[in-house]
Each structure stands twice: as structure tokens, then as C-alpha cells.
């Protein structure tokens, strides 16, 4: 059967790809996409640990992943809304150019 650490390695690689996207990309939407990738990697970790250590006894991992789904949805909704709002007032969505706090 598949050893646990295979899943963990996959999750680590995906997480680092997401991290790379978050740091290098200048477009805020692309940064958000990187964050989604990182959340997915975290979910793999949660489910893998749940499956291998606690599957018989409780549902912590699954519920945790469910809440992560809800948080990801909330984050995308508000994050993209902010990006659109910034685009409307500034005509740009490049992260470096959005450096003033006033609207």
C-alpha cells in the first residue's frame, strides 16, 4: 500500500510551488492562485494524517479540511472582490503598484 510519506512529499512539493507563485508573481490574481495551491497542499496533509492515524476513531481531519474549504471560498470571494475594486479605482492589479493605503 501507499506509505504515508509519499503523500507528505507530494504535499510539500505542491506547497513550495504555491509559495514560489506567491512570491514571484506580480499579478494579484496569480498570487491568490498560489495561495489556493498552498491550501490544497495543506488539505492533502490533513487528510493523509487523518487517514493513517485517526480514521477509525474520529473525524477531526475531515472536518478540519471542510473548514479549510469554507475559508478558501471566503478568501477567494473577498480577495477577488478587493482586486476588482482596486482595478476599478487604480486601473492596475500589480501588487507592487498597489502600495497606497488611501483609496
Amino acid at each position, binding site marked *: *500500500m*501507499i*506509505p*504515508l*510519506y*509519499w503523500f*507528505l*512529499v*507530494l504535499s*510539500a*512539493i*505542491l506547497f*513550495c*510551488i504555491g*509559495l*514560489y*507563485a506567491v*512570491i*514571484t*508573481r*506580480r*499579478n494579484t*490574481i*496569480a498570487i491568490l*492562485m498560489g495561495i*489556493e*495551491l498552498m491550501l*490544497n497542499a495543506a*488539505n*492533502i496533509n490533513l*487528510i*493523509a494524517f487523518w*487517514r*493513517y*492515524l485517526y*480514521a477509525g476513531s*474520529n*473525524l477531526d481531519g*475531515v*472536518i478540519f479540511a*471542510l*473548514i479549510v*474549504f*469554507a*475559508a*478558501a*471560498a*471566503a478568501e*477567494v*470571494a*473577498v480577495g*477577488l*472582490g478587493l482586486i*476588482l*475594486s482596486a*482595478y476599478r479605482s487604480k486601473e*492596475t*492589479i*500589480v501588487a*507592487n503598484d498597489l502600495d497606497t493605503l488611501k483609496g
Partner: protein
Amino acid sequence: MTTMQLIFLITAAVTIFAGVMMVSVRKLLHAALWLILVFFGVAVIFGLLEASFLVIIQIVLYIGAIAILIVFAIMLTQNAIDDTYQTSRRWLVTAVVAVIALAGILLALFTWPQGQALTSTLAGGQQDIAAIGLALLDPEGYLIPFEIASILLLAALIGGIYVGIEHKGEEK
């Protein structure tokens, strides 16, 4: 090597490839489509972990809703940025940082004493979704996270609409 392991390896390879393409491709729209492939790969991984409810949620929520929202946002802001202006010049430094982080995680993982020994045989049955429902609504279980999730979603809905709606009269 069993069939399961083979399926895992293929899925992992495809997922990682799609992830790399997502961060390296120039057009943002194509990056979003690669991201959808990553989501799909993660869904298959959930399937291998016998979490059928999460497989279908991954498809319904991530591919069906979040990815579509991202594509909408890209289309709405597409005049803002031209395709050649995507990555910053420090990409090499960042790549090194990311690889070092990965190496650190992997090192921690492989030096973890019980890590490699943990394997699990598959139960073979279907995931019990009623158990999730019972646990979610159990006051001694996860009722508080369940209700807080509703408030989180409400806040996201109100926030998203408040910032997303075009305020009349504030147009320049």
C-alpha cells in the same frame, strides 16, 4: 509495486507538472486552467485516501466554483496587465528559497522516526457521510465550527458584495 501506488505516482506527476506549469506559464488564463488540473489531481489524491466526500467537494467547490470565479476575475481585469509583465525579476532568488524550504521540509520528514513506517491498509468500505453529519451537528462535536463557518461565509458574502459592487456616484 501495486496498482494503487502506480495510480498515485501518475497522479502526483501530473499534479506537480500542472503546478509547475501554473507558475511558469505566461498567460494568466492558461495558469488558471493549469490550476484546474492541479485541483483535479488533488481530488484523485483524496480518492486514494478514501475520502469520497472530499473528492466530490474538491470538484464541486474548487473546479466548479473557485476556478470559475478566478476565470471571471481574470476576464474582468484583463486590460490591466500585459502578458509579458508577469513575474518579477527576482524569480531565481525565490526559486532558490522555495527549493531550500522544500529541502528543509523533506529533511524534517525523513528524519521523523515513525514517518516511513506508517502504512495503512484500505478499509474497502465507502466513507460514512452520515457520521460527518452527526459529528458536525453534535454540540459536543463540531457544532461551534459549523455555526462559525456560516458566519464566516456571511462575512465573506457581505464583504465580497460590498467591495465588488460598483458604487453609483463614485465613478470618476
